[in-house]
């Protein structure tokens, strides 16, 4: 009996310690949520659709890229396909978190999966790997829920703020989205292969921009990722 109580309080401690570990992430996530809420209506998404995307998709970079594609007039099936390719990186995270979450009941897994993001993964794997001090699996649930709440509250606040600003394009706010991605991109340029990826993506975007239906975006992503992969493979061999 007493061990059961202990187990329960330990579980709830893991959850709240996850929530606390996620609070510093809010600093980084809130501006994106605000920006997403602000920008959604500028490309023609309705207010409810903008918020629904944050509630149901809950994947920042693909949501921003979807905005860019909606604004550029891409077909919706192509946007869904592009979203799939961009979010395939979740496979990496799930493969690495899996062994730590595997002990949980099967029925929990859909909810836990839904909360998987770059940020939640980074914080959680860091703690799970600490020898001896590693928290239980509910730590991850706490991190994931805290990120989810922040992303959606900030999207909603951004929507309200956007309604107060007249003519965002005249103010140059249409450039806030590319500027955001410059901020995300630059810290990732740490190897020769990553620079090659950037160069090929840039060249392919410009050269292929005539392709119909904004197919250029998906084509450029696949070409550039393959180039980065190729250079990394080649450098390893030589």
């Amino acid at each position, binding site marked *: 009996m007493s061990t059961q109580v202990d187990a329960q309080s330990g579980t709830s401690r893991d959850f709240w310690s996850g929530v606390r570990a996620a609070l510093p992430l809010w600093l980084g996530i809130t501006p994106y949520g605000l920006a997403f809420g602000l920008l959604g209506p500028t490309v023609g998404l309705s207010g409810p659709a903008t918020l629904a995307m944050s509630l149901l998709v809950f994947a920042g970079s693909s949501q921003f890229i979807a905005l860019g594609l909606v604004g550029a007039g891409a077909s919706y099936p192509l946007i869904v396909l592009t979203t799939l390719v961009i979010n395939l990186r979740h496979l990496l995270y799930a493969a690495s978190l899996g062994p730590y979450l595997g002990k949980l009941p099967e029925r929990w897994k859909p909810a836990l999966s839904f909360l998987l993001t770059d940020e939640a993964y980074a914080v959680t794997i860091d703690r799970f790997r600490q020898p001896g001090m590693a928290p239980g699996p509910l730590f991850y649930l706490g991190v994931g829920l805290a990120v989810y709440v922040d992303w959606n509250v900030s999207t909603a606040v951004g929507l309200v703020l956007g309604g107060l600003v007249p003519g965002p394009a005249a103010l140059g706010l249409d450039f806030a989205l590319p500027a955001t991605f410059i*901020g995300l991109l630059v810290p990732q340029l740490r190897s020769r292969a990553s620079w090659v990826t950037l160069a090929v993506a840039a060249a392919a975007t410009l050269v292929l921009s005539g392709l119909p239906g904004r197919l250029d975006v998906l084509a450029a992503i696949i070409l550039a990722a393959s180039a980065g992969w190729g250079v990394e493979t080649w450098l390893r061999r030589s």
Partner: protein
Amino acid sequence: MGGGDLAQALLILGMAGVTFLTRYILLALLGRWQLPEGLARWLAYVPIAAFTVIVVRGTFAPDGQVSLDPRSPYLWGALAAGLVAWRSKNVLLTIAAGLAGLWLARMVGG
């Protein structure tokens, strides 16, 4: 632009569906299928590729038409944002620098 409400609902459900699949499938198949090492290394380059495409389109084709005009205010905004991103690694400062560069170039350019 943007389509009707029904089209937007379908877009969001489609995006939500494929995204959930990428998150869930390995946890559901835990131990029964492993991510091939080559695919894992390829996936690591997808974010850089995707972010670059958005930056290049926003900088050189803000209205949909590609233009390499060096007087474009968007180009100066991107240069300012890139410089600040490199020095500070801070996203909010980067956005502020990008917008400031764009406004300055617009004022100077007339």
